[in-house]
């Protein structure tokens, strides 16, 4: 239990320390044509910042995100297509770097799960409706008391 807490504390320390006093190397500017700039701007929001996780590379100012942005910029400049650039990042960081995960056996549940849930809900709903109809048909109305009915109508 204590070692577990210590490990957690250490992990917390490790993760908070990520942005401290790193060396930033001056890198040469990569000039892009306006068409390439547009492609870059389209690509970056689809890529996840791995340090801040819920931010995209377009938004993030984390050092790693800046490095990756520079990397992607270089790839765009060298004429790589968007799928090639995404593959380059997936090869290193895994599918998690993409905000839209690919459709493959590991993600079938993720992509098809909601449709499955809707179908399940429809099936339950239909069963309920059919059940209550059958119950209504099965139970005949009680015999009418003619005298009481006449009394009611006369009032």
């Amino acid at each position, binding site marked *: 239990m204590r070692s577990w807490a210590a490990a957690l504390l250490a992990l917390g320390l490790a*993760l908070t320390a990520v942005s401290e006093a790193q060396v930033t190397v001056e890198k040469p500017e990569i000039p892009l044509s306006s068409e390439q700039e547009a492609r870059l701007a389209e690509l970056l929001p689809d890529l996840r910042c791995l340090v801040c996780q819920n931010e995209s590379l377009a938004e993030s100012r984390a050092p790693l995100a800046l490095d990756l942005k520079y990397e992607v910029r270089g790839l765009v400049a060298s004429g790589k297509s968007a799928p090639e650039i995404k593959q380059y990042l997936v090869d290193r960081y895994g599918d998690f770097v993409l905000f839209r995960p690919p459709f493959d056996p590991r993600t079938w549940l993720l992509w098809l799960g909601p449709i499955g849930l809707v179908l399940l809900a429809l099936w339950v709903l239909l069963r309920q409706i059919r059940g209550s109809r059958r119950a209504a048909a099965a139970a005949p109305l009680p015999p009418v008391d003619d005298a009481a009915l006449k009394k009611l109508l006369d009032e």
Partner: protein
Amino acid sequence: MRYAIPLVVLAVLIGFFAVGLNRDPRLLPSPLIGKAAPAFDLPVLAAPAAADTAVAAPQRLGNAAFAGKPYLVNFFASWCAGCQVEHPYLMTLARQGVVTLVGVDYKDAQADVSQWLAARGNPYAPILVDLDGRAGIDFGVYGVPETFLVGADGRVLHKHVGPLTPEAFEHDFKPLLGAGS
């Protein structure tokens, strides 16, 4: 019986949450496991005498220099608190000499890391310098310290994120030391 379906749904949900909420969202599976280690060719840190001088110190070292024997690649930095946490254990590992320990000094100033090592000791056989973080990107590093086990055949066998602990080494690394040869 009329509650069977809601109960099953609830049980499934509880199952999902029990698994999902106990996972650390910061631990990402590495796509490198089982693949050849990324190619690197990095300058060697001019540092206080290395613990293991078996590897002669040319100016740069790449994958080929370590081929044929399993080795650990430990990304660290003097500015990283988690590296401070794991450092005593790395010293122990170095003393035991079970595996070659290759340090990669990640985005760090030479003066800082030299001082850091002088104060704490140097567990690394060679220390390579990844000043701009390019090698880090190739290894998919997203937060130091990260430790990779590369097998004798040059494939990545395991990755550990966060400070390396004796438990993690004994449980996850040690059984793999013989593999990949």
